[in-house]
């Protein structure tokens, strides 16, 4: 519920598309170097072999899959905010919907790279495509990795289309206020949007349908990702709570990333009037809920491990708390459950610095949660004679830096070249539109 007029909204948002200062380009260039570093490291890995990373037997999955799950998790809140909250008519999501959705698209892109980076023979990845071929070979749709292929590609397609659909009226606004090359580009991008009545009619119908279509995906994608683990026999993986546990965790981390992105954006673009503290507070309130769900999941895992009387399961969880990676468990409990519960204090959840710091903590904690699950499970698997540890190595760090750089690189380009707040949706909540 903004007090701004439509013109103020347009002006505030379009001001962000002014010619950027040199400092912006320095950041963009730095991030691009980060991307190049990651790409270089990947190229090196392809030529030399996946062994340049730290994976081994028993821990054959390392940071690549941790980052994959991490980015898929980040990708969740965008759709949650833009689709589910749209269906619920939660008006407070309007100022952040665009940026959150963009975050989703970019995070899925980053996530989608990792299964490729992770492959031992990435040049044969087309074996996973269900295309009829003379070899009469067909992918194994029983494999959770095939579920992933379907789920992630669907999610990427739907969330990109959803994002683009929502962007159309705003693209037309930019087109109308710009000249020269930018005008030409935006004319092309806005697909002939004129603001005619039937355009608006189709647009709002389409947007609603997309929202309805995207809503189950929020649940399904991370459920499917969780099945990569839950369908395995590995102790610590093979549990039925994984799907809701992962979905809640994903939303938790996604919301944290929304805060991480929105707070600087709000400051740099002087969006204080648009992205109000109330909006941020609502995000924080949601995080209290997701944090509690995640905490419940942690507790349930331990309870079931004890209650099952399964020696293997119990040993696995005992080791999780006492073994070499115990710090990971404490990071995740601290950062994902305890620290976000500070949001129960109103002053904390309305303080922008606190919000920012806690959002960073949750991002950190959620990364470690994936580490604890993915590495910890197999490191302490069934055969004690094959227990082993894992530590990432330089190439993996480079690729990790590359993926974060790619994400922020794309996001930085986005917020100076596309309207980072949905003018259309803001205007819907403007007083006269009431």
């Amino acid at each position, binding site marked *: 519920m903004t007090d701004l007029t439509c013109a103020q909204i347009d002006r505030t948002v379009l001001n962000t598309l002014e010619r950027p200062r040199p400092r912006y380009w320095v950041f963009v260039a730095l991030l691009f170097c980060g991307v190049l570093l990651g790409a270089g490291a990947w190229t090196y890995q392809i030529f*030399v*072999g*996946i*062994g*340049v990373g*730290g*994976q*081994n*037997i*028993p*821990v*054959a*999955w390392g940071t690549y899959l941790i980052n994959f799950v991490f980015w898929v998790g980040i990708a969740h809140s965008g759709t949650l905010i833009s689709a589910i909250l749209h269906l619920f008519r939660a008006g407070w999501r309007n100022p952040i919907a665009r940026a959150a959705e963009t975050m989703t698209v970019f995070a899925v892109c980053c996530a989608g790279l990792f*299964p490729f980076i*992770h*492959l*031992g*023979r*990435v040049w*044969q*990845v087309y*074996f*996973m495509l269900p295309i009829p071929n003379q070899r009469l*070979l*067909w*992918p*194994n749709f*029983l*494999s*959770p*990795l*095939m579920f992933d*292929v379907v789920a992630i590609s669907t999610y990427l397609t739907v969330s990109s289309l959803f994002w683009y659909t929502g962007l159309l009226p705003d693209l037309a606004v930019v087109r109308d206020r710009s000249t020269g090359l930018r005008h030409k580009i935006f004319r092309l991008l806005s697909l002939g949007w004129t603001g005619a009545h039937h355009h608006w009619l189709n647009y709002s119908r389409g947007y609603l349908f997309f929202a309805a279509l995207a809503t189950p995906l929020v649940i399904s994608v991370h459920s499917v990702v969780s099945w*990569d683990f839950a*369908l*395995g*026999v*590995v102790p610590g993986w093979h549990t039925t709570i994984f799907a809701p546990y992962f979905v809640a965790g994903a939303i938790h981390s996604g919301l944290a990333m929304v805060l991480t992105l929105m707070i600087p954006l709000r400051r740099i673009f002087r969006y204080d009037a648009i992205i109000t503290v109330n909006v941020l507070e609502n995000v924080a309130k949601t995080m209290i809920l997701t944090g509690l769900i995640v905490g419940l999941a942690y507790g349930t895992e331990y309870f079931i491990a004890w209650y099952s009387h*399964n*020696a*293997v399961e119990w*040993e696995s969880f005992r080791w999780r708390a006492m073994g070499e990676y115990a710090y990971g468990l404490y990071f995740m409990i601290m950062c994902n459950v305890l620290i976000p519960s500070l949001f129960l204090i109103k002053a904390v959840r309305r303080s922008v610095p606190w919000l920012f710091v806690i959002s960073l903590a949750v991002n950190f904690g959620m990364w470690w949660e994936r580490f604890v699950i993915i590495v910890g499970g*197999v490191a302490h*698997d*069934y*055969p*004690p*004679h*094959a*227990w*082993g540890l*894992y530590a990432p*190595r*330089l*190439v993996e760090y480079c690729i990790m830096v590359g993926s974060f750089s790619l994400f922020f690189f794309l996001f930085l380009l986005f917020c100076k070249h596309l309207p980072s707040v949905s003018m259309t949706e803001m205007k819907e909540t403007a007083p006269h539109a009431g």
Partner: protein
Amino acid sequence: MNRRTFLKIAGLGSVSFAAGCSPESPKYLYSLVQAPEDMVTGKATWYASTCRECPAGCGVLAKNREGRVIKLEGNPLHPVNRGRLCMRGQAALQAVYNPDRLKTPLVKDKDGFRPIGFAEARALLKAKAWQAAGRGADRVRLLTEVAGESQMELFRAALKNWNSRGPVVFEPFAYEALKTANREVFGVDGLVSYRMDEADVLVSFGAEFLETWLSPVEYAWKFKAMHAVRGGEKGLFLLVSPYQGLTGSNADHWLACAPGSEAVVALGLVRRMLAAGGGMHLPAAFREALAKASADYAPETVSKLSGLPPAACEKLAGRLEQARRPLVLGAGCGLGDDNGLKTNLAANLLNLILDPQLTRIDTRNRHRVEAADRRSDVLDLFLTLKGGGCDLLILNNVNPVFSLPAESGARAALSTHNLFVVSLCSFIDETSQQADLILPVSLPLETWGEYGGWSSIVSTLQPAMGRLSDAPHLGDVILEAGFENDRPAPDFKTYVATRLHRTDRVRDELQWLEMMQHGGVFSATGPPASPQPNLLGRLPQALAMPYEPPPAGVAFTAAPSVRFFDGRGANRPWLCEIPEPVSRVAWQSPVWAHPDTARANGFDQADMLRITTRAGSLEAPAYVTEVVRPGLLVMGIGQGHTSYGRYAQPAGVTPRAEFSPTDSVELPFLTYVPPDSANPFAILPAIVDPACGGPSFNAFDVRIERTGRTVKIAKTDGSRTQHGRTFLLTVTLDDLRKAQPPPKTGLTMGDFPLTLPLPEGYNPQRDFYPAHEHDLYRWGMVVDLDRCIGCGACAAACYAENNIGVVGELRTIQGRKMPWMEIVRYHDERRLERVMFQPMLCQHCDNAPCESVCPVYAPHHSAEGLNNQIYNRCIGTRFCSQNCPYKVRRFNWFTWELPEPLNLQLNPDVTVRSKGVMEKCSFCIQRIKEARTRAKNENRPIREGEVTPACVQTCPTYALVFGNLMDKDSRVRRLCNDPRAYQAMGYLNTKPAVIYLKKVLHEV
């Protein structure tokens, strides 16, 4: 066929093989228009020969494919090893194809070694020899390893021509104490063999008969013949030793005596047996003297000196007394000191007292290694050299600079002024490095010859492949250099043939051919003969002397290694890569210490220690383990080379052997500068026992210092205990004898029934998918844990058969080892000093967790139940390994490199995998396919026993059985009904096709 034709064909064959061994990789495939008679492309030819990796002399069959030997297997006709080989035998190929093998002779001038031609080198040797011979008597000396009788005879003849005395035979493990004890008690100045298979109670005072002692493969099968459970009965093996090596780990009970006190325990037993009325058949005077000599060893004294609790000694004595067919073995090869001699004497006397007829001592099949000279003679030779008493020293495949203590001055003796040293060695080892001329000669697999591991047999060698270089045969070199016009034979092959003919071992050419085909003449092995005790009426002098306890303080023992023998195996990548069985450490030789020793001296696992004896010091990492008695450090022999090619580790801890592509991203803490030496031989005292002339591999009162550095131990185990899981199960003999409980029916780990990977294993209550249908075959393996001794021969055979990559030390530390078959070692949770072994390989599950998770169907369930891995299909997601509850899948993190010519060893029937694909045990599918083709051609099903995977083929103790589970009469299927049968972690309902039989514990 007459001899000439045979020679022609053999010659033609050799030439074609040599032509086939071109080092360049061929671009085109041609088929031979006229192939040699015995060569069909795609079909293996087998040549019988004799393994010369140690003096045991096992028979081998060399598999030749398209001109090169690709695999060695035991010769089933050979009485020593009965078709089985140890890991060193399997790795003999890696000497032949070693990339560090010399291709030309090297002569030393002031700038170091310079290559010369073979003809030139041979001429130089001949000139030097005759020159030296002209200067007087004994100016030419020859130091050789134990060689065949023909070879020795030729040496003697040549040396005689050179006006010199016979060769000195050097073996680091020369059994001086044992030989002396045999002479004193049995009247046999040599090494008798033991009919261990007939014993029911075996007591050993440290003889490491499963590792290096006398003839390890032979004693492995003999040991399990007495020690494997059969009809509720099982022999008993008791060990008295300060530490447990591989042999000790197989003991039912380990009496951890103080270092140097074995003799006390043994003599205590003698005293007790005499007191109990034993030995009445001994000459009265002797018995009296013996009783007098052993009177000092009353139980309390024994307990005090040996540190053993009286109850343990009592138990040992009681078991030995009750035994119907006892056999006592003496000390290990490292005990050539007074203690060792006393122990061996006491052991022999115990045998004599307990078994007057000595039925389990065999003098007919004496071990060839008895030909080795005593250490004192070897040291005398070096003294002579140092004194300038010789002009030419010829070294035949010995490495005294490495395997003699540094104190002995062998290195200095070799560089004596005016001494010309010729080393007939194919590698630049520490000794060759001191030589003036290195003349590589062909290796045993490329040579004609004869070497009988037992005195009663003839065991032949023949070239099993073409030659990789122009290196001449050793015999031919000596024939050429040692004789002018009186050459006894044109070449060594003729020499061997003539000699065998002369000694009536071979009657005619037909028999010669037969002998070559069979690998020797074994028919002469008639009934074994027992020795006639020869007690000379007086007590062996050593026994009359009082026992002197060794100096107090921490003791150090250099232990013979199952992997490297005396160090000669250290340049074979497989032997380095396969972990030491008890510690599961690959590539390195850490120092074992008991946790108490570690605590007392303030060090911990992986701390780099500096160990200083009176004779020198070395640095090695610590490995803390309960298999060593407190107050003792044990270090495996074999590594610590300063020169023996790229694979021989200088200090056992240096990431030197790099196999994979340059990986610049290495962890900085792994780079470590090695100390001068980590060779345990080097720090031993160079003294010999005056009574037997033997060395001691022990040093007492050593100093331990922490260097402050730690290293990464290349250990290949995770947890040492199995945390109550059902991988390695045991059953006590008593429980086994009791009535068997009803079959299990539950779903928990301890309660899940044996579920065969067959349609009858399908249970609608447990299974989601229907059972796999099989037409004729469902392959399966039974692993008898009671028979497995953990020697690792299977692992080596698997490396050889399946072209498995060798990853090196660094990547072993990183968890990138590749074995398809590995021997898992677990310590008993209740008694950490008890070590148990379990062969772990792909379980070929019926309900395989790996198969369902692969997105591209690379793991594929075959119609015969095999879990195949399709390399071409694999894209490297590694999900299969993640989901494997046995963690037997191996990933190619890199394309492992094989420096030429190691690639010539590759088995053409097995794909060489490249980077990015998963691999694992295939049950040697290439052998199954071969048998199926044969069966199909003959229009019949595959017969029982027709398929033998490489591991099963080589297992010295018959612990592995392979066959068709669909056939109700097959051995594997019948063994599934054994009450000991179980499946590793069967409760996961994976329905493994590898059925384990529980290890039977013989509680004492």
